[in-house]
């Protein structure tokens, strides 16, 4: 099997999350990388791998020059959008597993609120070119438009309701209220608040939608042998997979085709997972991911959420324990990767006791990682 704990996430780092960072995206990344390397106990000059989202604006060579890297041996971007965090982990772990790099840093620095805003099509609009010629002229202008179209049909097919989606948002807010780093740490949310919030793109209410955030985050990968010099529990990569396209039904997420590979490589099944971070660009997709990864059967996700099963600490599968993209920060999966590491190490503000297997999806089937807690 691919990695099976041969590679470890040795360090994590992040800046504060805000609406106006007051500094460049490059600086946000570098601050986060410094923290992650300090956490890992690895010198900046020893970094020999750098990976980023293709939508990130800080080139690898620029980051390397600022870090004082001596010899950059592995680098690159993965295209698409915010959804490639786990794919980057798979890529970096593969390089280390193959002996092509020793210390790989994955970074994301973004002024997603004070700079270019996703919700307005600033980043994603394609001026009617390519496949957008068949969607944008009719008003499907941002990612949420296409996702709302899918969500509407899936509501029709499975009977899942807006109120059940609302319980995703309410649950995550409860987790954020325990996390001082979260944007909504001080602000509670009720189901009534969700249901009475204005419609953005029906069926999405305001509180179904992720935040727009300024911030930086980074994680450091290295061999498990090397990472073991760091004291305390570790976050070993049990499995990491990516998926960029799949031939599937309109109402399926890509998790339908990705999850069999994930469980096979991990030699696990959904019942083994203790805690999950799931890409919540929009709350309904947490329900869909729970179903399409096989945590519950198709059509049962809404009730699973509404009955408290994803709530820390009483639920059987606490989800988005830092508050997620809805209530902590929208760092395009980076903050969820970091939270999955915290859970594996026992460091979360909503820590699942004795969590052995920590799951993170970074795009509803475009990539997933399972971390195993090690000593």
């Amino acid at each position, binding site marked *: 099997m691919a990695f099976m704990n041969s590679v470890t996430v040795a360090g994590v780092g992040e800046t504060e999350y805000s609406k106006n960072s007051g500094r460049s995206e490059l600086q946000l990344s570098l601050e986060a990388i410094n923290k992650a390397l300090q956490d890992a106990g690895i010198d900046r000059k020893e970094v020999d791998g750098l990976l980023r989202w293709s939508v990130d604006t800080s080139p690898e060579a620029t980051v390397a020059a600022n870090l004082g890297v001596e010899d950059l041996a592995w680098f690159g971007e993965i295209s698409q959008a915010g959804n490639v965090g786990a794919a980057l982990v798979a890529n970096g772990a593969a390089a280390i597993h193959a002996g092509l790099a020793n210390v790989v840093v994955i970074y994301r620095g973004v002024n997603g609120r004070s700079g270019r805003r996703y*919700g*307005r*099509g600033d980043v994603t*609009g394609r*001026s*009617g*070119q*390519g*496949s*957008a*010629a*068949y*969607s*944008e*002229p*009719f*008003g*499907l*202008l*941002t990612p*949420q*438009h296409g996702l*709302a*179209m*899918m969500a*509407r*049909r899936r509501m*029709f097919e499975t009977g899942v309701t807006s109120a059940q989606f609302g319980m995703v948002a309410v649950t995550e807010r409860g987790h954020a209220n325990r996390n001082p780093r979260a944007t909504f740490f001080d602000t509670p949310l009720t189901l009534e608040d969700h249901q009475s919030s*204005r*419609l*953005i*793109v*029906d*069926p999405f209410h305001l509180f179904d939608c992720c935040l727009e955030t300024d911030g930086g985050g980074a994680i450091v990968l290295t061999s498990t042998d090397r990472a073991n010099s760091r004291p305390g529990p570790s976050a070993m990569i049990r499995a990491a997979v990516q998926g960029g396209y799949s*031939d599937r039904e*309109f109402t399926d997420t890509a998790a339908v085709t990705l999850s069999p590979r994930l469980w096979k490589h991990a030699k696990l099944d959904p019942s083994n997972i203790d805690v999950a971070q799931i890409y919540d660009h929009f709350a309904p997709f947490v329900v869909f991911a729970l179903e399409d990864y096989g945590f519950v059967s198709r059509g049962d996700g809404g009730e699973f959420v509404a009955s408290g099963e994803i709530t820390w600490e009483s639920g059987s599968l606490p989800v988005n324990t830092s508050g997620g993209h809805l209530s902590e920060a929208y760092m395009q999966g980076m903050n969820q990767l970091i939270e999955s590491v915290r859970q594996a190490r026992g460091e979360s503000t909503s820590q699942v006791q004795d969590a052995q297997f920590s799951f993170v999806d970074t795009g509803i089937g475009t990539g997933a990682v399972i971390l195993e807690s090690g000593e």
Partner: protein
Amino acid sequence: MSDYHWVRPANLTLPDPDENADEFWEGLKQNRLLLQVCSICSKTNYPPMVMCSECGGFDFQWTESEGGGFLYSYVVTHQPIHPSLVDYTPFLTVLIELNEGPRITSNIINIRPEEAEIGMRVRLELFQVNSEITLPLFVRESAS
């Protein structure tokens, strides 16, 4: 029946089609919705493809859709999250399943957003934006 008539936002994005779909956009200018059909295996594509994903062929024919279908899914944009939508919300966008099988993103021009209902029958109504661009839109079929 509704006498409502939808107004297309004046500055909403227009298609900037690539060369692989010239027949499609030319067909619309001649008031025909053309679907791409593989010359070898007869698989029907929308939007047009460069290569047939079924059989690997590069030769296609074009067949005119008869224009019937039903509402498969829909969204209503309430927040004018794009500058072109200011003054035009709430704004209905639909996914129509054509009787020939493919699904096509479009607008229904004779209903209000709150009248949208999955399963409702629709038929094609071409909408000329300018001398270069005609779009395939739809109307709700009368109940009769």
